[in-house]
């Protein structure tokens, strides 16, 4: 039983979680930094608590302040959103010690899936396909031999990694040792741990992930898959559900693998199992588990009709899942474009500032917008640059994409520079429309187009096959 949740996040996900709390009849107290006291989430919440100064390191990233805020405000649960402390073992442990429900998996699962090597071994022991990889490299002198067994090209990856940090591609033996050193230094800086390992690199691959939700009564259900292949520097830009153009046996294999892994690991809450799919062979391999609600959860909600955040709150309160696998039906197609306050013409430099114009397309049956922004809102410089998630649906993938073009056309944001125009061009690209993209595709496209690529105005969108780079 949960009656009052501390929402320990900001931006659009804070708004999303507060709305879900209303849906299930729970009070929401929003923890805010000095920069967010006047935010949309703060207005929407039943109460707010001033957590600390604007920099996240002095507010949103401090587990002890978050728990003290929950205790002080009489909250019996903490929802961490995504990012910040969403996967913090420390926060989950503090919650446990203080009798507060952490709306997420338990400490053990967070620890297991937070370490990529442990997660990989768990996946392998559940019979989920994994790429050939090494254990952590403790002695660089042993690396060449291990690398030869795995085969080139390969990746050096951080065990504590994520988001592409601490990751290096190695195409030949002479690059191995320098790459190990660089990756270890990067991993140490980003995650506090220099532990790295080696993994086979698949040159042309897609990013496909499976949404899972599990309760504390042993029920584990998948809600289908998503494709998030269009990425810039490992940051997803376009996501869709279900993942298109996969042979039925691959799609089934992915979904069953994800459920099996979560069941074997005793996972509870919502979570995402990420896979790499070889674009040529369509074979799939386990990448990692994201033990949290994800940015792109909305596209899954749109094709299943299931409120993932509300479900997450219910299972955190100990309720059984209100549906079985057989009840889950995937209908139509949904796509999401992330709109960031960044300037693609300037190397995607963040563009904080006052929003002077904010006009969004009409939302309804086929368009959903998750945002915390409004006209007059000051996008603060302290946090990530996501200002809106535009989602559209259709009975077919093409229709969902056509509606996205309309929706982005009706989206007007002034005062800050955004990725809207770039997104509009991307969703018209034949590679995207025909799903021939791979994860390095966008980076190559942007590199080829030159540094000013993002500054172009959108081309006429009448023919999706038209070349608009």
């Amino acid at each position: 039983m949960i009656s009052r949740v501390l929402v320990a996040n900001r931006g659009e996900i804070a708004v999303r979680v507060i709305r879900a709390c209303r849906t299930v009849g729970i009070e929401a107290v929003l923890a805010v930094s000095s920069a967010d006291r006047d935010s949309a989430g703060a207005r929407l919440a039943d109460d707010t608590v001033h957590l600390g100064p604007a920099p996240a390191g002095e507010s949103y990233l401090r587990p002890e302040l978050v728990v003290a805020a929950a205790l002080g405000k009489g909250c019996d649960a903490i929802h961490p959103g995504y990012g910040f402390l969403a996967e913090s073992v420390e926060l989950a442990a503090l919650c446990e010690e203080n009798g507060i429900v952490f709306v997420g998996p338990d400490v053990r699962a967070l620890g297991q899936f937070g370490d990529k090597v442990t997660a990989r071994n768990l996946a392998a022991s559940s019979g989920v396909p994994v790429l050939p990889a090494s254990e952590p490299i403790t002695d660089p002198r042993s690396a060449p031999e291990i690398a030869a067994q795995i085969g080139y090209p390969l990746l050096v990856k951080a065990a504590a990694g994520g988001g592409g940090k601490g990751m290096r591609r190695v195409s030949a033996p002479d690059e191995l040792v320098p790459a190990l050193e660089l990756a270890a230094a990067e991993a140490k800086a980003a995650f506090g741990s220099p532990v790295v390992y080696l993994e086979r690199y698949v040159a042309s691959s897609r990013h496909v992930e499976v949404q899972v939700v599990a309760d504390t009564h042993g029920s584990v259900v998948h809600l289908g898959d998503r494709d998030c292949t269009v990425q810039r520097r490992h940051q997803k830009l376009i996501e869709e559900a279900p993942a298109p153009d996969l042979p039925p046996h691959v799609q089934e294999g992915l979904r069953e693998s994800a459920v099996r892994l979560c069941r074997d690991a005793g996972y509870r809450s919502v979570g995402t199992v990420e896979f790499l799919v070889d674009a040529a062979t369509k074979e799939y391999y386990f990448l990692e588990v994201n033990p949290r609600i994800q940015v792109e959860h909305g596209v899954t909600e749109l094709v299943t009709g299931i409120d993932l955040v509300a479900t997450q709150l219910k299972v955190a309160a100990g309720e059984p899942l209100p549906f079985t696998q057989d009840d889950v039906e995937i209908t139509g197609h949904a796509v999401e474009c992330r709109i960031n306050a960044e300037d693609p013409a300037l190397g995607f430099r963040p563009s904080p500032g006052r929003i002077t114009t904010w006009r969004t397309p009409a939302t309804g049956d086929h368009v959903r917008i998750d945002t915390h922004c409004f006209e007059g809102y000051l996008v603060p410089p302290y946090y990530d640059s996501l200002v809106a998630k535009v989602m559209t649906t259709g009975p077919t993938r093409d229709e969902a994409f056509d509606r996205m073009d309309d929706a982005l056309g009706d989206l007007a944001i002034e005062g800050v520079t955004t990725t809207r125009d770039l997104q509009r061009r991307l969703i018209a690209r034949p590679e995207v429309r025909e799903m021939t993209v791979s994860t390095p595709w966008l980076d190559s496209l942007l590199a080829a187009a030159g540094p000013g690529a993002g500054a172009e105005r959108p081309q006429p969108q009448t023919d999706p096959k038209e070349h608009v780079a």
Partner: protein
Amino acid sequence: MFDLGEVNLESLIAAVDRSGLTEVTITTADGELRISKAAPAASTAAPAAPAAALPVAATSGAGTSEPAVTAAPVAAVVAAADTPEGPPPGHAHIRTPLLGVFYRAPEPGAPPFVEVGDRVEPDQTVAIVEAMKVFTAVPAGVHGVVREVLVADRDFVEFDQPILVVEIEADAG
């Protein structure tokens, strides 16, 4: 009558800079003087006057040309209209440097750090705030006389919440 024109701004700023305070607000009949070290909390009082030394953003934003934020290396002073939450003229709020549980005394049963009527020095501890068993001393930050204690012992306080009202005295040293 306390007159803003008579305030030695430099010594006030220096005092705030030395102290653990993030902000001092002095209200007079003419208006309000605010000295702030951190980003302004909900800047309802000073919409047109960015007040703060902005800490560098961890991920982004540093050095961008956003017009509404200006970086200032030291404490900045803002004169602004009265705010409903501001202290009385000639007085300053001592605010909590962090969120947690407010303690008036160093230990249960001990006399409080300060009582109403006590004179305080900038370095003097006036309260303790505890978050998850970590205790943080709150210095007065100003010369003055305690006129009001705004929070009860063991109450939960948020970041930057006013806890004491101090009548400001001229800097003696």
